């Protein structure tokens, strides 16, 4: 049995689901960021797989993946900086205790 596009898509969907579950169930902001990273990885697998099977001559999928990785790095840096700032000001990084947006 050949490895086809669907195999990769299923793996990426599962990885995406795991990341989403992490985001929804964690209360630690850092853990939520980890979930986001997983979801981004799932997307990358998806994009590269499509590139391989749908348009192998072009490399646009690779470029997409590179851009996504770049933005993921940015997101991680800014997000973690925000976590630091929140921790300094509110002395907690549990998002269910941070309810300044309420009312």
């Amino acid at each position: 049995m050949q490895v086809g596009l669907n195999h990769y898509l299923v793996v990426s969907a599962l990885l995406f689901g795991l990341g989403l579950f992490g985001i929804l169930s964690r209360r630690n902001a850092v853990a939520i960021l980890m979930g986001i990273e997983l979801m981004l990885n799932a997307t990358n697998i998806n994009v590269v797989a499509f590139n391989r099977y749908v348009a192998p001559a072009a490399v646009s999928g690779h470029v997409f993946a590179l851009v996504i990785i770049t933005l993921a790095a940015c997101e991680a840096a800014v997000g973690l900086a925000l976590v630091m700032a929140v921790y300094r000001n509110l002395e907690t990084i549990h998002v269910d205790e941070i309810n300044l947006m309420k009312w």
Partner: protein
Amino acid sequence: MGELAAFIILAIVTLLPAVVVVTNRNLVRAAMSLIPSFLGVTGLFVLLGAEFVAGIQILIYAGAIAVLILFVIMLTEGGTGLAVRQVNEQRQWGALTAGILTAGLVVILLGTPWQITAGTLPRSNVEAVGIALLTDFVLAFEISSLVLLVSLVGALVIARREQ
């Protein structure tokens, strides 16, 4: 046949640590588990013939981001201890939602007739990516460099301790 075996192994290497990442109550362990998961994704990239992306993946994710996350976990020690509850009260609802969504995604993805093109990747992958970045995607390339700069400055400003 060898390709399938490699794919199955890599999928397991990717997904199992990911489960640890989202479920383990020890945050450090969760963060450490990110690394094998990222490496598994790297392997999938190699399998898909994207060597350059795989290299970048190792450098950025497995190297930089994982280390950054570990740093932050250490710096915010008050919220990461083992004794602290790590899950919130909507966990079951989250699991349900994530499950439904994943199931829905799988159904849709498998149900869609993708147009598979039989072709081969360019032989020199890195060269092709470089040319594409500086010709067709030069705008995206420049903008992402700008975004990098802005986020660098922004992260510094936000994380800096006030006087």
